[in-house]
């Protein structure tokens, strides 16, 4: 029999080449999906505006102007989205709020992805008793009213923005861990993992080099679906006054202020709400599109 010997590098090359073409195909499919493409454009616009927009506007987000309290939106005054009760420009505040909401969305999601992927791959890869115990813990945590948990954490340790990242990340990892575990179990049965094992690669290296790259698609899909839920969570806390604190602002804070003052100034509620809803909807559409793109046989 003719046995061909592959070195570790060969194996990695074969895998990475296959991986790249799979993902670039998926990206092409994603761009063909009209809803996803539109969402991608809207989301990029909101992100770019939030990051760079404030530099081009004449007002600052903390600048109070007692002569222009509750100005309705107008082109002439330069307050395109109007002003609030302190005479601050709403547009600039929304963009600043967007920076915060989006970065909390991304950072807290990353925290939960790191926890979830580590936890899920370990449980899935090693299996057996360890897996049973680890998944039972997840099951128990699932049953908890986790948002209330976050609130208690915020109460006990004070309203600190870094803690907010951590607390949200710490409760959102459960779903990720479950999905990653399931995928890991199916991937570890594949031949190329057997091959790596027979080459004497350590478990750690196999997880890092072979399992996680193959999970990338699933992880990306769940990131796009997790970011909106994190943004909602942050806004929820901020709405209650337990999240982001003045002078900083986020969409949740703005919506909370807006809902209190909607009787006098509807724009304070509608515009931040619009930005938030557009972002959430876009992320959802992108997530759905990505799922279809990465797994075309399902549809």
């Amino acid at each position, binding site marked *: 029999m003719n046995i061909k010997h592959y070195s570790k590098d060969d194996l990695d090359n074969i895998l990475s080449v296959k991986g790249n073409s799979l993902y670039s195909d998926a990206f092409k499919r994603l761009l063909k999906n009209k809803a996803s493409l539109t969402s991608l454009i809207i989301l990029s616009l909101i992100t770019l505006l939030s990051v760079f927009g404030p530099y081009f506007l004449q007002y600052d987000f903390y600048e109070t102007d007692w002569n222009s309290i509750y100005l309705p939106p107008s082109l002439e005054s330069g307050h395109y989205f109007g002003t609030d009760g302190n005479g601050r420009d709403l547009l600039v505040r929304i963009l600043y709020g967007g920076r915060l909401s989006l970065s909390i969305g991304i950072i807290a999601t990353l925290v939960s992805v790191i926890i979830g992927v580590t936890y899920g791959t370990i449980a899935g890869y090693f299996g057996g008793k360890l897996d049973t115990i680890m998944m039972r813990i997840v099951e128990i945590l699932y*049953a908890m*009213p986790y948002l209330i948990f976050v609130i208690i954490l915020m109460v*006990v340790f004070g309203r600190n923005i870094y803690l907010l990242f951590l607390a949200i990340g710490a409760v959102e990892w459960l779903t990720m861990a479950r999905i990653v575990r399931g995928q890991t179990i199916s991937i570890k049965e594949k031949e190329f993992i057997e091959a790596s094992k027979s080459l004497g690669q350590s478990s750690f290296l196999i997880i890092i080099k072979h399992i996680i790259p193959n999970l990338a698609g699933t992880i990306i899909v769940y990131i796009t679906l997790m970011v909106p839920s994190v943004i909602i969570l942050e806004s929820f806390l901020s709405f*209650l006054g337990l999240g982001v604190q003045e002078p900083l602002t986020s969409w949740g804070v703005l919506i909370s202020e807006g809902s209190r003052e909607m009787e006098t100034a509807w724009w304070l509620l509608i515009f931040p*709400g619009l930005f938030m809803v557009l972002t959430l909807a876009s992320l959802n559409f992108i997530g759905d599109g990505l799922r279809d793109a990465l797994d075309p046989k399902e549809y």
Partner: protein
Amino acid sequence: MIQLIIKRLAIAIPTLIIIIAFVFGLMRVAPGGPFTNERALPPEIEQKINEAYDLDKPLIQQFGIYLSKIAKGDLGPSYKYKDFTVNELILSGFPISLTLGISAIIISLLLGSLLGIIAAIKRNTIFDYAVMGVSLIGICVPSFVLAPILSLFFGLYLGFLPISGWNGGNIYNLILPVVSLSLPQIAIISRMMRSSTIETLNSNFIRTARAKGIPKRRIITKHVIRSSILPIIDYLAPATAGLMTGSIIIEQIFGLPGIGRYFVVGALQRDYTLVSGVMILYASLLMFLILLSDILRAILDPRVKIK
């Protein structure tokens, strides 16, 4: 069946004890909490807390006493509201939150399932697209955006409905809170129900039912629904958790003096005993719902009993 209940209780009770232990532990490490020394409290409350938690005894014994008090339904004195126990506060808010929560859950389940089933049967018709479109809005518009907009429109602009207050449980005062609380859940449930009904409609046993010449209506009521409702039964507990957290916001927005309101006030004022009391109540309710949905599942799906 009894076996199943015992088995579930065997998981639920330790889980609850873990939650209580967590809350108990947090209260002890909390800065400015009831168990730290740098507090400035009126002596009568300080004394009550000392009495309530037997602070002179060893930690493990304190936890035991705390647990047994909770088992008897005593959540201790409020840390910030003088002269009130947590029980009294919770009891005063409970009827309101319960009315709100039960109406919302019944409406979400009934309307969500019904819309989902009809959308699945009338797949790719205008009705289907309309239901899915509205449910997309329900998913993308969080309740704290939806509720103010609804009250802005129906309350202030049209003037149809009161936008805040309990008013002794007047039905008009309930409409906006219940609608804003249930809409996100209706959205999720109708989507779930639609896809599970489509899956069931495509299954082999429905083909058998059609081949048996059973009228369409009876196929749906006798053969389809009992299978396609199962994911919704499993979703019962998460839905309740969603409604609980939603009600915290909704009670705030519509000025309803329910438990959620006390929770927020307690959280903002660092009323540790109140917050942990509400937490324990929520967790027990959730455990009960998980048990309930397990029992329902066993009733609806004969395959479960075997295990």
